């Protein structure tokens, strides 16, 4: 089980993380082939495993701006199956919209993945188990988590590259809010806000840590994200075996300083790496793909010192 793995390790004892940046100008490319090749760089222990993809599905948005694009979800699924996974399911628990069916049908997920009833799990309505949290970064001590998540062998966080009006950015760590079940906490999962967003992100990820992360940055969102921002084409997929390192790399691509993003700086202590010297960069360099994202005035302080 992914949630049973030892996830809390001081940064200095943690091995180097690997993050790859892959260019793709659009969603109409052969993303599965692109990702299959990119995954070759990682020694993925997925053969015969039950893999769970956790995209970021927020609202019924036909434009493909708010949610992880279904083309990316389908491509990741195919790539992991080709890498030997026994099964690859897709699961999400949207934070605001109770009618999950309306989201997956509006974004045409079925057209990309085929029949969904045995492939897609609404984490908001799954059976739940109480789990004691491994850290106390927030006021929470335990949370109910969906059985589908707890029983997965390998979890892949699959967010969109977006700014966020409360947290600064929403990437693979914040995306894990979606595993907290609405059937216990409501829509939105307001208990996480009251317990502290940054602390909740850390507590959830310390307890149910994604094994891998792939960020859809082909078209992201800047400004007043994660719903009402402006589309931002970055033309990249950013992936790696350490969600913290992936998010730190994403922040740098967005022209932001990861060490200034509260929860990401703290995640760099026990959950993964944010320092460049601890992240082995594969594929494209950050400098070659950097695309400064506009941020709300409250988050101007996150902009990297070099002004890019």
């Amino acid at each position, binding site marked *: 089980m992914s949630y049973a793995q030892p996830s809390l390790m001081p940064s200095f004892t943690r091995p180097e993380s690997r993050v790859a940046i892959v260019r793709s100008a659009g969603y109409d490319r052969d993303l599965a082939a692109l990702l299959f090749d990119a995954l070759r760089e990682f020694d993925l222990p997925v053969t015969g495993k039950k893999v769970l993809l956790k995209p970021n599905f927020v609202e019924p948005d036909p434009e493909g701006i708010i949610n992880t694009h279904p083309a990316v979800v389908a491509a990741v699924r195919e790539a992991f199956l080709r890498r030997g996974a026994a099964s690859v399911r897709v699961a999400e628990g949207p934070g605001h919209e*109770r*009618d999950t*069916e*309306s989201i997956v049908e509006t974004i045409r997920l079925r057209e990309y993945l085929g029949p969904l009833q045995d492939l897609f799990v609404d984490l908001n309505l799954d059976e739940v188990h109480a789990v004691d949290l491994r850290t106390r970064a927030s006021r929470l001590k335990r949370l109910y988590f969906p059985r589908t998540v707890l029983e997965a062998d390998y979890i892949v966080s699959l967010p969109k590259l977006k700014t966020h009006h409360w947290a600064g950015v929403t990437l693979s760590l914040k995306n894990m809010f979606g595993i907290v079940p609405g*059937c*216990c906490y*409501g829509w939105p999962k307001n208990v996480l806000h*009251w317990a502290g967003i940054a602390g909740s992100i850390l507590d959830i990820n310390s307890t149910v840590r994604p094994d891998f992360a792939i960020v859809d940055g082909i078209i992201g969102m800047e400004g007043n994200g994660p719903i009402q921002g402006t589309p931002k084409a970055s033309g990249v997929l950013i992936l790696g075996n350490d969600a913290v390192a992936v998010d730190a790399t994403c922040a740098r691509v967005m022209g932001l300083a990861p060490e200034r993003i509260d929860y990401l700086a703290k995640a760099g202590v026990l959950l993964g790496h944010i320092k460049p010297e601890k992240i082995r960069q594969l594929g494209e360099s950050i400098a070659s793909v950097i695309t400064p994202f506009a941020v*709300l005035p409250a988050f101007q302080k996150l902009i990297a010192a070099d002004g890019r």
Partner: protein
Amino acid sequence: MTSGPLHNSYFRDLLITNQNTDGGWGYHPASASSIEATAWALTSLISSRREPPPPDVCARAGDWLLLAQCADGSWPAFPGHPQGCWATSIVARALYLQGGAQKAVESGLHWLINAWPAEGNFWWRLRQSIFPSRVALQDSSLRGWNWTPGTASWVEPTAHALIFLRSLPAPMLSRQAAKRRELAERMLFDRMCPGGGWNSGNPLIYGVAGVPRIGPTAWALMALRDFSERAEVQMSVQWLEGAYGEIHGAASLALANLSLAAYGRPVPPLAPALGEMYSHNRFFANALTIAWAVLALNEEMSGVAPTAEEAATR
């Protein structure tokens, strides 16, 4: 299966088939019984007056819900969970409509009337007075109900509580209940999106108008049926009518139908559209969607919130 209309009792029969042996319903077939799913299944089945379910189906559901009630009168999300939650309104109303559980309904009502959202506490108000929010500008003195204890008011749990209160005869409502009802109604109007309709509860973020959603709008409108002449309600009904053609989920479609029918607005035939959607994904076997589809398909149910007079005659 092929697309197209299903026979009238298809979803009702499906719901009955999916009842767990303990008397409850899970959110999905054969999953652990959930308080909310069971309450909605019961509500929809007792509304099937033309084709009532076998008596033991509703009786077992009612018994299961009674056993799951907390000592303080509330209901949690699942049996054994430590705290009551928004499901209390839905269960109490289901049991009231079913009849025969007066004491449980009254204790649920008592809990609900005394359950205040967290934005009302002293420390929160003090903090807001010193550091007012620049993100979401809304009147936090107008309080409704929250999803879970210790959190803020939101549109949907507030609407469920109001629909429950609205279903009760006047003698059951204390002065405090009437005050809370009035405060919560004002809160819903405050949280309406600028162009009409509701989302989960943030009409403006950084000054940008929030986008309404079908579900919250449908629930809020059903909760505000007594205000059908108000401009805000008219505007929201119009928004829902305008958005109707873009609905892609069966739950949203059923709720939109229920809501528009409650305001006497014409709605397209529901059965063919539900049949088409069901052929695509079988509603992901979601018990709530099936229950709301049954509610919306029942000719007898022109709205989920009967007036006090209607309720009193049941």
